[in-house]
Each structure stands twice: as C-alpha cells, then as structure tokens.
C-alpha cells in the first residue's frame, strides 16, 4: 500500500463529528482516525460509548450527525451487510454463531457457496479449511457443530468468520473475554499478521495489560467524548484508568487486617468424575481465598460443587468444626449460610426482564413477609434502596429492568442479593468478568469489606493481578486437582502459572501450546 510509506499516514477510516443520542447523548462530536496497519485500542468505562461507536462503524446503528470516510471515499453503511461489503468486519463479545450449524457453515453464513439453492459442501469445506488454517486452527474439523466447541474456540471461530471475508477494517469488541492465555496468543499472532498486511484494527477491551501488549495507539472515551489519543508505548496504566473514570478518585484498595479467624468452610475430597479430583481446602472467617488456574481446570466446578449446583461423586463440605453438611442442592447450601455469585450473571444469576428490586430480594423474599403469605412492599423497597445506595448501583430506579444496566451494575445487583441474605461463606466465580475498571474497583471494595466483616470468601478469577491484590491465599487448580496453595507474600506470577500448567504436562494442551509458539 502506497500510503503506508508516507511519513504521516492518512487514516484509512476517518470519523468526524459523529453524534448519537437516545434520550441522553451517547456520543458527542466524536472524531477518530484509524490508520491502515495499526491496532487502535478503544477504552472507556461501561457506558462511555465504545459499543455505540463500534456499532456505527459496522453499520448496525446510524449516527444522528457526523460523517465517516473509508479510504478517502464517503462511507455511510446502512446495514451490517453494507459495511461488510465495504470491507469492515466486526467480532462481538456476544457471539453471533448458530450453535446447531457446523463451523464451516458459520464461517460463511452470509454467503454460503451454493448451486440451485443447495449448499456446495465440498467448496464450503475447502474454503473453511483455508480460513481456519489462516488462524492456526488446523486441527479443528470444520464439520463440527459449533455447540460442541468450548467458548474459547467459538470465539476463535467468530474471529475466523470475520477474517474469512475481505477485511480492511476489523472491529473487535472484547474478543479475548473467553479465551485462555494460549488462545489469546494465537489470536494476537494473527492480529499482528493482519496489521502487517495493512488492516486497520479497532480493539475494544477492558484488559489494560493486554492492550499495552498488542496495540499501537490508545483512544480513551468518557461520557461519549474522546478524552485522549496517545501512543500505547507512552501510556501508563494508572494514567489511563484516571482518564477513563475522570476526576473521581480511584484510590488504593482499603487496607484490611489479614489475620483470619476460625475455619468457616472445610472442603474435603471433593470429586466429580475427571473434572474434580479429590479437592480439599479450608477458608477461615475474614479470609479471601483465591482459586487460580486455567479455564476448565476445575475452579468453577469446585465452587458449584460446594454450592450444590452440580452433583458430586464424593467429598464432604462442612462449616468450620461442624458436622458434614448434606447439600443436595443450592437450597441446602444457602440454608447453611453459603452463597454463590455464578460465572455467567446473565444466564445464571439475573432475571434480566425483571426490576432491579426483584433481583435484589429474590433470595430473601420470606424475610419481607406479613402474615406468612404477603410480600411487604414497603419493607422490600426500603431494603433494596439501602443496598442500592450502599453498593452505588446506577439505575434510573429500582423498577428499571436488570437487563438495562451495565455489566458492573448488574454484578452489584447480584452481590446485593447475597448481602441481604447475610451468608457467612460467599463463593465468587469471576466476579469482575466483562465489567469496567471503575466497577471492578467497586467490586474489590465490596469483597474487602465483606472479609473485614468476618465473612469467608472464595474468589475464582482468571486475572492473576486481581487475585494477588485481593486474596490472603491463592490455591491453584490444574486439570481438576488443587495442586498447591500460596500464602500472601509467597506467591509470584510465574510460580502460579507454572502450577496452573503442572498437571497438564505431557497432554494435548501442551501440544497446543507448542503450536502457539511456532506461530
């Protein structure tokens, strides 16, 4: 490309004065330049307008005002199809794959090769193999149904689907949220190849470290405006966080006394087929125990087994010195004072179409009862409102539907549910997944506060930095076993990662890692 050699390269995609408002303005007078051959990170708190901007670029939303040009030509996509024809591709956080169709069919869903209305299977498979190989997914059979793939592989297939078509501009909205570190490396290697080929990549993510690793420039949005665009190499993390959340003080986490009390939860020999093998640990009052490990290593299975969400084959759970609990289902766990914040808040925790207030009080309704049967509206409302203020849940009212809140606020609503219930043991499964920095800090504060009040916490997280900031101890899981536990001060990132891989030695996973390195 000729323009790539000019000293100040012309932007491939130029966005000028774009505005979009629903009831309140979402984007205001927004300018953005995306150069060919750059990876441009777009950052901002939830609600800053990142998704709206990416939707406008990809033709899913029409701006109220403003212009765009693509390669010097005016660019006004009125549908995603039009944007795709112009070479603008999108990979969203929420996968739009058809689970029952094969990988190959999903890759070319919009333009299946066909003849007389029948799919030309041989041609389709050939094209699919080509597209998958380009992403290093040589081992994936394109005839596999998408529903049989893990979430990480599905994400890679979605990426492959976008890249299987002519691509001048690629918009990625949280593409790595569900990927393991090996898969992220695979995706990054491919993004770098695309960049070298002159593609402009707009990269939306909450993961600061990741952005510094992959991107060339960073644009920070706040309240629908660009507050800064700077080279990624110059960006300091705390500076970016400050730009994203504005003048609000971020502050360090409240210091908490790290001297736990008596044992609050004892888990012995928890076993569930090959997914959980003889997992034992203890958590004390006022202690936060982190569960680290790769996706699929048994962390989620462990907390679900304790909570009675899945059946286990063997193992005992007890509250401190007490006798073993009989936990046949979540109901028994809750009765024993154990609460769980599940991994997928939309599918497993929230009633999306119902009011915030109903979501908050779901687990404690019998506490708001008059004469055995009747819900005491006034008391319920008071309790919900107190929680809303305490956790700073941002909603128009307690009657707003939970599905309309941002991810961070949704998570606060789920946490509120268990605060009302006053559980002594709380199991958090990826409590900060997909929520913005400000909301993450708010969640950390809540966790710290709960521990300071003597609750015993188990926190599953894929972000090591998060666990190392929060926890008193970190237990590392690998292939269904709890391989080691580090106390505060004993751990290092390298040691935790090494432990996380330890049980996979000599298996398929290392083979896959080897392939990553060869990319």
């Amino acid at each position, binding site marked *: 490309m000729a323009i790539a050699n000019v000293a100040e390269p012309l932007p491939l995609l130029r966005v000028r004065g774009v505005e979009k408002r*629903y*009831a*309140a303005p979402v984007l205001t007078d927004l300018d953005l330049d995306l150069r060919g051959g750059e990876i441009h990170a777009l950052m901002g708190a939830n609600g800053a307008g990142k998704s709206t901007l990416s939707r406008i670029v990809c033709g899913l939303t029409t701006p109220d005002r403003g212009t765009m040009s693509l390669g010097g030509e005016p660019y006004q996509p009125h549908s995603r199809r039009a944007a795709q024809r112009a070479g603008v591709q999108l990979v969203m956080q929420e996968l739009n794959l058809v689970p029952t169709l094969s990988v190959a069919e999903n890759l070319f869903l919009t333009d299946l090769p066909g003849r007389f209305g029948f799919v030309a299977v041989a041609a389709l498979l050939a094209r699919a193999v080509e597209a998958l190989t380009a992403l290093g997914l040589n081992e994936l059979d394109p005839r596999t149904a998408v529903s049989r793939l893990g979430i990480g592989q599905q994400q890679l297939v979605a990426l492959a689907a976008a890249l299987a078509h002519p691509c001048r501009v690629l918009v990625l909205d949280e593409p790595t949220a569900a990927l393991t570190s090996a898969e992220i490396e695979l995706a990054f290697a491919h993004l770098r190849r695309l960049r070298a080929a002159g593609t402009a990549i707009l990269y939306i993510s909450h993961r600061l470290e990741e952005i510094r690793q992959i991107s060339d420039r960073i644009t920070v949005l706040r309240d629908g405006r660009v507050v800064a665009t700077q080279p990624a190499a110059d960006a300091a993390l705390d500076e970016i966080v400050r730009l994203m959340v504005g003048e*609000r003080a971020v502050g360090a986490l409240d210091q908490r006394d790290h001297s736990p009390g008596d044992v609050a939860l004892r888990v012995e020999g928890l076993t569930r087929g090959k997914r959980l093998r003889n997992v034992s640990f203890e958590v004390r009052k006022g202690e936060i125990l982190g569960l680290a490990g790769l996706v699929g290593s048994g962390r989620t299975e462990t907390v679900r087994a304790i*909570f009675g*969400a899945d059946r286990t084959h063997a193992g005992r759970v007890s509250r401190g010195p007490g006798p073993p609990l009989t936990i046949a*289902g*979540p*109901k028994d*766990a*809750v*009765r024993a004072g154990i*609460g*769980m914040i*599940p991994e997928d808040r939309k*599918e*497993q*925790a*929230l*009633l*999306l*179409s*119902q009011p915030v*207030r*109903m979501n908050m009080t*779901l*687990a404690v*309704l*019998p506490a708001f*009862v008059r004469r055995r*049967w*009747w*819900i005491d*509206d*006034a008391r319920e*409302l008071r309790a919900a*409102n107190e929680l809303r*203020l305490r956790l*700073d849940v*941002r909603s*128009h*009212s*307690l*009657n*707003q*539907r939970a599905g*309309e809140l941002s991810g961070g606020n949704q998570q606060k609503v789920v946490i509120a*549910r268990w605060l009302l*219930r006053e559980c002594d043991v709380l199991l958090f499964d990826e409590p900060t997944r997909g929520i913005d920095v*400000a909301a993450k800090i708010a969640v950390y504060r809540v966790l710290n506060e709960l521990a300071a009040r003597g609750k015993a916490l188990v926190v599953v997280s894929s972000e090591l930095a998060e666990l190392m900031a929060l926890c008193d101890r970190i237990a590392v899981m690998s292939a269904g076993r709890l391989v080691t536990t580090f106390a505060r001060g004993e751990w290092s990132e390298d040691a935790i990662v090494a432990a996380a891989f330890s049980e996979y030695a000599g298996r398929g996973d290392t083979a896959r890692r080897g392939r990553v390195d060869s990319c």
Partner: protein
Amino acid sequence: MLKPPTAADRGDSPAVRSLPRIAEYLGLMAVLVLLVALFSALSAHFFSRITFTTLANQIPSLTVIAVGMTLVLIAAGIDLSVGSVMALGSAVLALARVEWQLPLSVAVALCLAVGLLAGLANGFITVRWAVPSFIVTLGMLEVARGGAYLVSESRSVFVGAAMGRVGMPLPVIGLSPAFILAVLVVFAGEVLLSKTILGRYIVAIGTNREAVRLSGIDPRPVVVSVFALSGLLAGLGGVFHVAYLESADPNSGIGLELSAIAAVVIGGTSLMGGRGSVVSSFLGVLIIAVLQTGLAQIGATEPAKRIVTGAVIVAAVILDAYRHTLGNRREHD
C-alpha cells in the same frame, strides 16, 4: 460516584409502579368497549341486558381455566390438558350426583379432587423427569379424555336440577353464582400473582429458572403447585360447565385449552414466561366472548366466526408485541 436520589427514585412507590399495569387494562378495556359499540351499531338487539347476562353466564368455565393457564404460562410452562381434565371432572361429578346419589358438596369435592390430581400428576412428572410440560400435558390431554369416556361409558349424563342453582341466573341481577365465583377467582389469582411470595417465584421461574435455583430456591415445588392449581381450576371449570348445561358430556371441552391460551395471550401474557396478568386474561376472555356473541347476533356463519376470531387473536398478539417493543425502547432511552 454517589448520586443524590432523584425524582425518579421517588417514583418507586407502589402506587406509581402500578400505573403501567392500569394502562394495560385500559388498552384491553378500550378494545372491549369498541367491540361492544361496533356490534351495538350493527345489530339492534345486541346492546341489551339479556345479551350481557347470557354472555356472562356462558363464560365461568373458560374464565377460571384461563386463570390457571395464565399462571402456568407465566411460569414458562403450558397446560394442554385443561379441556380433557374438565371433561373428566364433569363426568365424575355427574356420576356422583346421578348414579351414586352423593350430596352436591361431596360430588363437587370429587370433581375438584380429580382436577387437582391430574394437575399434580402434570407438575410432578414435569419436574421429576425434567420433561417439557407441553409433552406431559399433551399426554394428560389423551389420558383424561380417555378417562372421561371410560367413566361416562361414552354417554352424555343428564343432571338436570341436581346441580342446584350454581349455573342459574340469580333474580334481579341476572348473573349466575358461577359467574360471580369466577370473577372472585380472577381477583384471587391476581392477588396471588402480584402480592404473594408464590406469585413472585412464579414470575421469577418463568424469567430464569436457573437463576432462581442458584439463588437457593427450589423451583420444583413451585412448578408443581402451578400445575396443581391449573388442574384444580379445570375441575372447578367442570363444576360450572355441568351446572350451566345441566349435563355432562365426555366430549365437552375439546379445544378449550386453545381458547384459554388465546384469551391469555390476548391479555398480553408472554408465551415465553415471566410476564402476564390474570385480570388481563379475564379481559381477554370477555373480548373473545363478546366477539363470538356479537358475530352470532349479526348473523355471521360458523366459518365466518372462526375466521374472524382467529384473525383477532393474531392481531392482538401483534399489537402486544409492538406495544412491548415501544415500551422497551422508551425505557431504554
């Protein structure tokens, strides 16, 4: 980060919250009034006391069955067996009265018990083997119908005055005790749904059953209760049906489940669960009844009646979907 409470926060008071619900009733009532006005204009005899009392005394069975159906649909289930269960209950009731000469109260209790048992079976099988209620109640539809034929030996049983005055118009007001009872059931259903824990759980389960389970609430007893209630109300429908017709026909109630679903859906209850209102379903029953009576009075043929009724059902659902997206958009802004 902290925001002082705004005017919107104060909008949380229960009185303000129930406003949209009242608006929902107004929409359905407007449709009802329009239909009445239309038929009054088309037919000289339509707008009369006798039309309305006759109409009211025809609908108690459908009304109570629609109440049960509303709860089942809100809990994201479906009950296809109600028509057959009503027929089975009717047959048992008629036999108890006529053949076994049991007192009215005992016969009625038997009929209700039959409905309750059928409903319990539906609910229990649904949760115990985690099978779709569509299939379970489709099976019950056949079983109960077969049972009705078996009990009645496939004959219509004449009951006559043995049902007392349950289905007969009361003097002065011209409405039957059955109609008044049915209206009470409607209000009881609405109160159950909006004011009690069970009602809240029903809505929650219809919205996201797994989330309810992971909140420490066992959804299974709730689901069983909902189906049991639907069965019980189908039994009650049987009592009203026999009282009104003064006989029990094992072929009665064929397709009644579809009329009930139609009424519930016209009332705006979601087939996907999690959203609905019992009072709205009652308005849906009234709309269907007015439509049927009015069409008959202006001399529409049976085929024409069915075509118009079908079109109205689909139109009502389109309207509801449209209104719902509008509402969503407004809230979203």
